[in-house]
C-alpha cells in the first residue's frame, strides 16, 4: 500500500477545478431545489451548456475567453427560459421530468455526428486554451506546497474558479437573506399561499431557475477550463453526483453545497486510490483492480440512500427543519 500517494491524491481532491465546478453546480441546485423548491434533474445539461458554450464560442467563432464565458451565461439563460415557460406553471414533478429529458436532448445534440465540426461529437472539444492562458497573470513557474503544487496555468484556473465560487456564494447569501429570498422560500412551501398574497409566483420561479442555471453553467465552465470538454461527462449520473454533493451538505443551506462538493471529491479521490491498492495488496478478494475503482460509484449510490433516509437535511441543515418534514 502506497499511503503517501493515496493521501497526496486525496488532498488534491480538496482543492481542484472539479471540486469547484461541483460546488458551483450544487449551489445552483440549492437555489433551484433547496430554496425555490424546483426539482431540477437536469443540472448536467446546464453544465454542458456552460462547457460547450465556452469551448464552441472560442473554437468556432474565435471569441476571447471572457466572451466565451458570457456566451455560456446567455445560453444558460435562454435554456432556462425554454425549460421554464412551459413547465413552471405546472406542478413541481413535471419540471423534474422535463429537465432530465432536456439535459439528455442537449447531451445527444452535442454527441451526434451531424454537428461534428462544431461539437467534436464523441471526441469532444479541446485546444481552446490559448486566449485563456494568454490572460494568465501568474508568471511561469510552480506555486503552492506539498500535494497542492500547481503550475502557472493550473493556478490561474484555480484562482479564477475560487473567485467565481466566492462571488456566487456571496450573491446567494445576499439573495436568500433578502425579502426576495423570503418570497422564494414561501413559494417552496406553498405557491398558492404566496400567490394569494399578491406575488407573481411564475416570475419568481423563473428568476430562481435562471440564477441557479447560471451557477450551473459557471460550474460547467470551470470544469472545462483546465483541459477539455468530453460529452461522456455530462451524463445523467453527473446530475446525481451533484445532487449527492448537495444533499450531503444540506439542500437549504448556502455553505452546505460547497462542503458537500468538497467531501464528495475528497472521498472519490480517496476511494479511487485506495480500492485498487487494496486489491493489489490482496486485502480485497474476488475482484479485479478495475472493478475495485468502480465500486466507489456503488458506494456513492449507497451513501446517497443512507443520507436521504437518515439525515435528509444534510450536514449543515437545520435539524429543526427535519421535525416538520411531511
Amino acid at each position, binding site marked *: 500500500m502506497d499511503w503517501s500517494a493515496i493521501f497526496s491524491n486525496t488532498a488534491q481532491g480538496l482543492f481542484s477545478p472539479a471540486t469547484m465546478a461541483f460546488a458551483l453546480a450544487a449551489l445552483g441546485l440549492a437555489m433551484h431545489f433547496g430554496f425555490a423548491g424546483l426539482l431540477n434533474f437536469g443540472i448536467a445539461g446546464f453544465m454542458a451548456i456552460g462547457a460547450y458554450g465556452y469551448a464552441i464560442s472560442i473554437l468556432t467563432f474565435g471569441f476571447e475567453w471572457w466572451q466565451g464565458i458570457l456566451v455560456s451565461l446567455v445560453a444558460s439563460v435562454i435554456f432556462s427560459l425554454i425549460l421554464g415557460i412551459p413547465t413552471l406553471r405546472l406542478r413541481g414533478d413535471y419540471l423534474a421530468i422535463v429537465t432530465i429529458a432536456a439535459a439528455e436532448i442537449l447531451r445527444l445534440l452535442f454527441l451526434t455526428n451531424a454537428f461534428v465540426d462544431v461539437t467534436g461529437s464523441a471526441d469532444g472539444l479541446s485546444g481552446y486554451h490559448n486566449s485563456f492562458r494568454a490572460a494568465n497573470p501568474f508568471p511561469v513557474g510552480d506555486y503552492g506546497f506539498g500535494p497542492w503544487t500547481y503550475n502557472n496555468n493550473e493556478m490561474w484556473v484555480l484562482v479564477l474558479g475560487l473567485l467565481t465560487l466566492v462571488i456566487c456564494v456571496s450573491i446567494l447569501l445576499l439573495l436568500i437573506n433578502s*425579502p426576495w429570498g423570503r418570497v422564494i422560500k414561501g413559494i417552496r412551501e406553498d405557491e398558492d399561499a404566496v400567490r394569494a398574497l399578491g406575488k407573481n409566483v411564475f416570475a419568481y420561479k423563473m428568476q430562481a431557475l435562471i440564477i441557479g442555471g447560471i451557477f450551473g453553467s459557471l460550474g460547467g465552465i470551470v470544469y472545462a477550463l483546465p483541459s477539455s470538454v468530453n460529452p461522456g461527462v455530462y451524463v445523467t449520473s453527473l446530475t446525481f453526483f451533484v445532487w449527492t454533493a448537495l444533499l450531503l451538505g444540506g439542500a437549504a443551506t448556502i455553505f452546505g453545497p460547497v462542503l458537500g462538493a468538497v467531501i464528495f471529491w475528497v472521498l472519490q479521490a480517496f476511494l479511487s486510490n485506495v480500492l485498487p491498492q487494496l486489491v493489489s495488496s490482496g486485502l480485497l478478494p474476488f475482484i479485479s483492480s478495475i472493478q475495485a475503482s468502480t465500486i466507489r460509484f456503488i458506494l456513492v449510490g449507497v451513501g446517497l440512500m443512507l443520507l436521504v433516509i437518515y439525515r435528509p437535511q444534510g450536514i449543515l441543515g437545520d435539524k429543526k427543519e427535519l421535525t416538520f418534514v411531511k
Partner: protein
Amino acid sequence: MSSSANTPANPAAKTTGLHIGEIRPGVAKVDPIVTIDGVSRHFGGLTAVDVEHLEIPRGAITALIGPNGAGKTTLFNLLTGFDKPDTGTWSFAGHALAGIPAFKVAQMGQVRTFQLTKALSLLTVLENMKLGAKDQRGEKLLYSLFPFLWKAKEAEIEAKAMELLKRFKLDTKKDDFAASLSGGQRKLLEMARALMTDPVLVMLDEPMAGVNPALTQSLLEHVLGLKKEGMTVLFVEHDMHMVRHIADWVIVMAEGKVVAEGPADQVMKNPAVIDAYLGSHQDDDLGTITGRITLPKKGKK
C-alpha cells in the same frame, strides 16, 4: 342552537339596509364591492358554478353557505383568479377581473385564505407575516442585492407584523416555524398574514373548520374587528352559529346556483334553504334521524 352562551355583552350591531328592492336571489345592493354576471364553471359534465347575478355588499360581513359540493369554494377560486370561469364577467371595486391573474387580484386588495390552511411551514411565524407585506422593494431581484435599499422598509414591516401578531396572540411564537403551530393557530396566522396586505375585501374559506370552541370566540371577534376597520368580509362556513351571529348578509348556494340570499334570520327560515341545506330535521334529535334511538315519531312536515 343557543347563540347566547358565547355572545359578548355588547354584541356588534348588524349592518342592515344593504339591498335595494325585494329580497330574492341576485338582488341589487346599495353599494356592491363585487358584482358577478353569468359566471359559470364546468368540470367535464358537472356544472360547479352557474351564477346569473350576484352582488356582495361593501363594508359588511357576508356569509356564503350551502351543502357540500354547492360550488362555494369554486366560486371563491373564480373570484380570486385561482380558477377561470367558462363564461361570464365579474368585477371587484369597479375593475373587471376577467383574465386577471390571481396575484394581481390580490394586489388590488382582495385577499383570501384557504379551506386547508396554508401556513408556510418552514418559514418562521414572523417571516410568514412579513411575506404578506406590500411595496417591499427588496422583493425585486435587483434591489434585493443591496440591503440598504430595503432595510428601512423591512423594519416598518416588522413593526406592523408584530402589532398584528400581538393582536392575534401569536407574538410569543414569532421565531417558531409555522409548522410547529396547532391547527387553530395556523388559521389565526393565515388570517393575520392576509391582513398584512392591507386588504379591502377579505375572503375566508371556512375559517372555523377544526377550531376549538374557545378559539372560535376569538376568531369571531377578529372577523367582526375587520368590519369595524372598514373592510368587507366574505366567508364560507358550515357553522350556522357563526353565520347567525356575525353575518350581515347570507348567500345560499346549491348545485352551483344562488338559491337564496338575505339577512341571516330571514334566510334560515326560507323553505328552499331548509330543503337544500339545513334539512327538515334540524330541530330533531340526532338519535331519531339515525334510527338508533326510537322516539315517538312526529308527524311529517
